[in-house]
């Protein structure tokens, strides 16, 4: 396990906020893309849901890396493992609950 790992932070604080603007544009594009796929009924139900969920996950990662600076800090590995474990447990509770109670749906 890599301890005390230090991520140098880029010093490009001056100038146009490219990172933020690209993040915003990507979010908007992904949101409208998902809307178009869902409302346009372009595909059967199962693939549509798979695609919009994938787009949502992609957009979540954009927030995580472009806005939330998840790789910053004295030991960023800590929060990365924390968030990954959170994703694992959230996946277990959503997936498990649906699987267990599927016959009621």
């Amino acid at each position, binding site marked *: 396990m890599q301890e005390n790992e230090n991520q140098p932070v880029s010093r490009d604080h001056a100038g146009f906020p490219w990172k933020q603007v690209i993040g915003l544009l990507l979010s908007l594009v992904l949101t409208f893309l998902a809307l178009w796929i869902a409302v346009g009924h372009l595909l059967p139900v199962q693939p549509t849901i798979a695609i919009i969920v994938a787009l949502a996950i992609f957009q979540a990662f954009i927030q995580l890396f472009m806005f939330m600076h998840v790789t910053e800090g004295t030991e960023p590995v800590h929060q990365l493992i*924390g968030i990954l474990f959170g994703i*694992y*447990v959230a996946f277990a509770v959503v997936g*498990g*609950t649906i699987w267990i109670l*599927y016959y*009621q749906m």
Partner: protein
Amino acid sequence: MMDSITNFLSHFFVTGDPMIYGADASIALVSVAVLAVLTYFKKWKWLWNEWLTTVDHKKIGIMYIIAALLMFFRGGVDALMMRTQLAMPGLSFLNAEHYNQVFTTHGTIMIIFAAMPFIFGLMNIAVPLQIGARDVAFPFLNAVSFWLFFAGAMLFNLSFVIGGSPDAGWSSYAPFAGIELNPGVGQNYYVLAVQISGIGSLATGINFLVTILKMRAPGMKLFKMPMFSWSILITSVIIIFAFPAFTVALALMTIDRLFGAHFFTIAAGGSPMLWANLFWFWGHPEVYIVLLPVFGIFSDVIATFAHKTLFGYAVMVWSMIAISFLSFITWLHHFFTMGNTAPVNAFFSISTMLIAIPTGVKIFNWLFTLNKGRIEFTTPMLWALAFIPNFTIGGVTGVMLAMAPADYQYHNSYFLVAHFHSTLIAGTVFGIFCGLHYWWPKMFGYLLDEKKGKWAFWVFMISFNICFMPMYFLGLMGMTRRMYTYPAGLGWGPINFIMTIGAFGMGIGFAIMAYNIVWSAIHGKKDTTGDPWDGRTLEWSIASPAPEYNFAHIPTVSTRDAFETMKEEKRAGRAKPPAPFKPIHMPNNSGIPVIMSAFMFVAGFGFVFWWFWMAIPGVIGVIACLIARSFVYDDFHHIPVDEIERTERAAGRLS
């Protein structure tokens, strides 16, 4: 007018049973006595400055342990009442309704208000000392955690005399726990009290995770930490990820009951099974929350009293990491019989059996640590040694229950009850008693008496087996849990009678321990060295009781058994001369945690009775406390060098 007041009061206060009136009178008398003693001896200021507002992890730990011991007593009395009722067929000591309430409060109190706070108390005391830190990462939040637990515990216990106790079991399954079938306030107490203390538990999890990750002494890599600290690291992770699910489940149940939503009702499309699903999504990891810390305690205690380094350290750690992952994918085994599809039951059967592997690995590690050790039979060591076989029986019967088809036979029988008591008593209870004796000198500066401690151990451990060994057979004979009585002629009577004898034996064992605590407070042997057990980890390197700042110098660590290495270096004359003291930066005390929890209690009590005029000001008070805290900037002070010198000299640490 008079009628309505009488009517209100007769519903507000629990009436109709002489035992309840006795409890009313004793609660009132004890409260008055406490207030009178505090006022007479002018101790109010002392209480406020030294205890109620403290952010010192050691004092918070002591408060946790005192509260947990009281709750353990209450839960134990519940158990004895149940065993009295079941001692013989057809007794009427308790009626069905009271019996339901008693097993509900027994389970809830033992898990949420006794086992968890006891463990939180021990980890508060030992973890910062073991890792060479001067406090936890968030001392203020630590006080908030304790006071939220305390507010929750008091709210829950109030149900006994005001409004009526919950009676749907500690797992409070819908639909019986719902408003239609359970219209009183009892279940409101359950959801709100457990919620309030659960928020505190989540905060404790975050606090200790950050403390252990970020505040270890220089040189103490993760794989050089004492095993107890490792177990708390993993436990904290499980707390952080299990408790939010319970928070949601309890909130949904509260909204169902208070605001007429349909999450768990039968009507309007609700799903009672969803409650079981969410409850156990927290409930199974909770088992590991109360077990992993005691695995850590046993590891440290066995290594100390076998005078050997722990066998298979890395394997122990990886077993716990595996448990932290697996504990989140086994929850369905608590309701195999609720009618799941075959693949679901198969998956959860296999995952449950998998989690037995890392647990089994740990058993072998303890055995190999003992192998060729110089074993010293102190009281903590006796608890640790008794744990290994007794807990293994609970573990093996767990694997039997893990097989879904077989579970249809065992489910909700006394076989199941015996299984989880074998794990929770032989694991958690033996563990917290072990830790209590082990760290007592570090908390108070004197030892608990060994002779009385050993008496308590033998009486409790033998009685435990008298109570719970026959219970397996009773379950196989067909007696189901939560029956308030049973007819003669089924052959259950003699076994039940033996079990009741065992239960009272455990009560006597606990009483001997309580007597030992009182006796030792007066006559106990002083711990002048700070290292009464020839310990191996850093908490024994400082004076007993530990000074406010813990370490006058932050130690530098190079090995797993850090203090053992220091002692060897000292014997070899290689110890470095101490550096001069520097002022120490410490957090200030704060009254906000206790005040905020009082508001939380008021809000909880208001919601229990649907009294929104009371609940809403309570909630506003909580938010006001949070905002007030945000504006506090000067929240630390420095301990000057001369004060450190005085303290160290008084503890005999300066020559």
